[in-house]
């Protein structure tokens, strides 16, 4: 569970990263001076920023290098990434680092251990060893130089767990980790571990038949006993334990509709207390003080992460820092041991983000780097949030992005997200949205029923609502946006999405051909019955059951599934369609788009077909993005009146 203690720091970065996960380092194709689609999608220059325990030094990924230093010393590159991506950087004490690296060619994970020597203005780095194992760093054991606790993933009879080893980084030979004695003897059921102040394993968390299960180790014995088991239908995310090891703080919806903060007594795990539940939103994280007390929670409000402190004093301290960055929200992505030095990111819909190192007491912040500095001179668009009440009593949240140009009227692209269950759009910088807005299209995103972040009932309301309730929510939000924003041209609307969003675009134009002039789908589902047919799904009972719950039963509800599949409703498609699909898409097979394209072509309907050779379910590099948008933008330009652009 120590693994979870870091979550507060990294949640936001993950959230932000999800928006540019498709980026790559293929900068070569952008040789022109003018701003192109590549500028919106290419990888950020900075990632994975971590500060050392004293707050003196920072390490982070800059381009294809990992650097260490501070603004006074200048940053010293100590590792070059060749077709690799960094999973995590961890300080081991004041001056050593472990970098978890994923090799994109061999698909292997390695942990690289570096020693740093800071001598005056010089930084000398030495690569000490590599650990080639799939696992995670459980604890850096700062009191024991060159030693770490390391958990290695294991799978036996389809059950996953980890084994914990104490490694001496000066002695370990890359491939011989498993020869060291494991510390979790008689417990081969757990994935995550908690340590006491002496760094002994005390509690563990495993998933037995998908149910979160906590085990406790008997003192001075090897035996472990189960002290808690949750339900597989609810979330149970341990976040931290109190310093005296008596309380466990968990984000859970076992007792509530929304993901709330619960406090468990670790002695018996009975009668948890609800410390905080938001009336509208799931909690995303908790805030822990240097004294290891829970002092606040984080949730998304209007698509932006909001920090709620339980005490006014701590809230004010955060607010003072926030005030230094008007029109942006700040988020802590790293901190030193006493949290006096924090690494923050300042971000908004029209700012991809800038990372600062801040001394909290004197509110002194120095810029480390901007994520996409090449966009600093580009006028990006603002995003506002909309709230619409559905007939069923849900509040549907939408995000409207208007181009930054001052036109009286804009053509609109409705952009439903993928999923449909457990996925959401946010109010932060989104490369797709900003590129379309840069091309003078207004964009409407909708967190329809089934989206994540709004509680269990809201998520479950999206089950079996393909082409039905979900698209009602999209239409309702669209109608509201048109009424409340006269600058949106109601006669110039298209709809575009990927994955479920592609399906939604196709079904929306079938349901409402007068509203939408065209529809574009990337990697979209077009035949609901086909979703069950791949052998890996057909042979997996659990996956098939889940899919039936979300989509419907292809045996007993085949007629219904066909009724809500664009392929079988192709005759109702009256307006132009754009279909793009990767030939190596393992999640939604290219066959989906093939089926629809075949039917539409046979009926001489207007379909633009873009098979993308080797592309997967998402874009892997900027060349794919460029190919896609070089075809999509002309499609929109053709079908949305350019007079209003």
């Amino acid at each position, binding site marked *: 569970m120590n693994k979870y203690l870091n979550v507060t720091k990294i949640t936001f970065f993950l959230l932000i990263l999800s928006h540019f996960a498709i980026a790559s380092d293929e900068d070569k194709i952008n040789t022109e001076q003018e701003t192109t689609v590549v500028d919106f999608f290419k990888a950020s220059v900075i990632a994975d920023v971590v500060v050392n325990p004293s707050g003196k030094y920072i390490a982070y990924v800059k381009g294809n290098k990992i650097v260490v230093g501070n603004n006074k010393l200048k940053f010293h590159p100590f590792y070059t990434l060749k077709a690799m991506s960094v999973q995590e950087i961890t300080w081991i004490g004041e001056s050593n680092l472990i970098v978890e690296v994923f090799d994109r060619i*061999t*698909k*292997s994970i390695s942990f690289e251990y570096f020693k740093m020597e800071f001598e005056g203005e010089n930084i000398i780095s030495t690569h000490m060893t590599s650990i080639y194992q799939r696992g995670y760093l459980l604890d850096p054991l700062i009191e024991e130089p060159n030693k770490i606790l390391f958990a290695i993933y294991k799978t036996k009879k389809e059950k996953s767990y980890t084994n914990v080893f104490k490694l001496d980084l000066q002695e370990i030979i890359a491939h011989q980790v498993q020869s060291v004695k494991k510390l979790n003897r008689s417990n081969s059921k757990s994935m995550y571990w908690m340590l006491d102040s002496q760094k002994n394993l005390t509690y563990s968390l495993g998933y037995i038949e998908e149910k979160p299960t906590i085990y406790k180790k008997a003192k001075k014995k090897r035996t472990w006993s189960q002290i808690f088991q949750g339900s597989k239908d609810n979330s149970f995310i341990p976040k931290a334990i109190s310093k005296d090891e008596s309380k466990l703080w968990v984000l859970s919806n076992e007792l509530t509709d929304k993901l709330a903060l619960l406090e468990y007594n670790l002695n018996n795990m009975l009668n948890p207390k609800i410390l905080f539940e938001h009336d509208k939103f799931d909690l995303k994280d908790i805030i822990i003080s240097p004294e290891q007390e829970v002092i606040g929670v984080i949730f998304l409000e209007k698509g932006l992460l909001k920090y709620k402190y339980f005490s006014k004093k701590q809230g004010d301290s955060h607010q003072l820092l926030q005030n230094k960055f008007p029109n942006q929200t700040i988020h802590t992505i790293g901190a030193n041991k006493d949290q006096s030095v924090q690494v923050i990111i300042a971000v908004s819909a029209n700012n991809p983000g800038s990372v600062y190192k801040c001394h909290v007491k004197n509110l002194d912040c120095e810029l480390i780097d901007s994520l996409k500095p090449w966009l600093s001179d580009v006028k990006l668009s603002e995003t506002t949030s909309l709230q619409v009440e559905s007939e069923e009593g849900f509040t549907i949240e939408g995000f409207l992005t208007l181009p930054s140009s001052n036109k009286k009227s804009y053509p609109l692209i409705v952009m439903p997200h993928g999923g449909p269950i457990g996925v959401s759009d946010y109010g932060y910088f989104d490369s797709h949205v900003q590129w379309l807005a840069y091309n003078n299209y207004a964009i409407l995103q909708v967190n329809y029923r089934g989206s994540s972040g709004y509680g269990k009932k809201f998520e479950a309301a999206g089950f079996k609502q393909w082409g039905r309730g979900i698209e009602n929510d999209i239409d309702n939000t669209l109608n509201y946006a048109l009424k409340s924003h006269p600058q949106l041209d109601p006669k110039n609307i298209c709809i575009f999405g990927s994955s479920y969003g592609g399906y939604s675009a196709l079904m929306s134009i079938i349901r409402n051909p007068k509203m939408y002039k065209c529809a574009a789908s990337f990697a979209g589902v077009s*035949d609901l*019955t*086909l979703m*069950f*047919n*791949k*052998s*890996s799904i*057909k*042979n997996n009972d659990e996956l098939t059951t889940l899919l039936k719950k979300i989509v419907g039963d*292809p*045996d007993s509800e*085949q007629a219904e599934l*066909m009724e809500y599949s664009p*392929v*079988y409703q192709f005759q109702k498609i009256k307006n132009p369609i754009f279909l793009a699909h990767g030939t190596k898409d393992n999640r939604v*097979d*290219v*066959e989906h788009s*093939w*089926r629809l*394209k*075949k*039917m539409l072509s*046979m*009926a001489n309907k207007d379909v633009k077909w873009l098979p993308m050779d080797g592309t997967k379910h998402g874009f892997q590099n900027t060349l794919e993005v460029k190919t896609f948008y070089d075809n999509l933008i002309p499609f929109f330009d053709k079908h949305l009146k350019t007079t209003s652009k």
Partner: protein
Amino acid sequence: MFLMIRWKIIFILLIPIYSWSSTPYFLPKPELSKKCHKVTKKLATKHEENGLLYFNQYQSKIKNILKKSTADQGSKQQILNKASSKYSLESSFKKFVFDFVDVLKNDITNETCDRKNLESLSEKSLKFYKEILDRSKYYIEYRVELESLDADEGLAIISAYSYGYAGRIEINPVKFMGDSMSIGPLNNSQYFRIAKLKAGEYQWGRIKVYGPMSLSYRDFSDANLKFKIQPGKLNYTGVFIHEVMGMYAKAEIFDKAAVITTMIEQDYPLLLNKYELVNGLIENDPFINFYLTQKKKLKSGN
């Protein structure tokens, strides 16, 4: 007699190679010695005559094979067109017959005019050409044989792709003593063919893996990668996809009915007309029936 005339028309339409092969002319290059000129002229004539001989023999064999076909003349032409384009008969004739003759005419010097060597090159070139004709003949023979089925046989559309290398890939009957078959090797390439199989259930099984000093198998027999063959029908069986990922490999069957139907329409229209296309992978998948019904409707204008 009537049939004979029609066949001639087909062949003229199909492969105008015969008309190219007018009487060989051979003007002596002034710098060549008399001896060399004589050798090259004789060899060129012989090479071209042999090329034509092989082609005529091929034509005559094909004529006999096609007699067995139940197809109408238009469909027979399609089969021939397919064979011709698949093995590129026109370009093969040019490559192995005309080009070699051109070499003899234009590129030989007194220094390179070695009779034995040139004869050996001619033989090699004609051997390649004959192999191409044989492959084309085999393709047509195989294709015509698919038109007749025993009572317990069905046609299986076998399709596979391998990302990375796969040696021979086995397809075995699940519970009965039916036909086994194997395809491959495939290396970042696809396999697409129609085969006769006894009715029953089949599964994709082992893949041969060649190591530097060893032979081993990746066994997917437990992965439940199955399909069914119905007698007297054209059975769609999905697409077997094998992917090598470093030390590991995975295999799955994907339902790609629209892709495969399109390929069948292009490559085997006659078989698609002759036999009912059924789904041997997912019996209750509605797509194939829906597509065929809609196609019929649109064709009839309803």
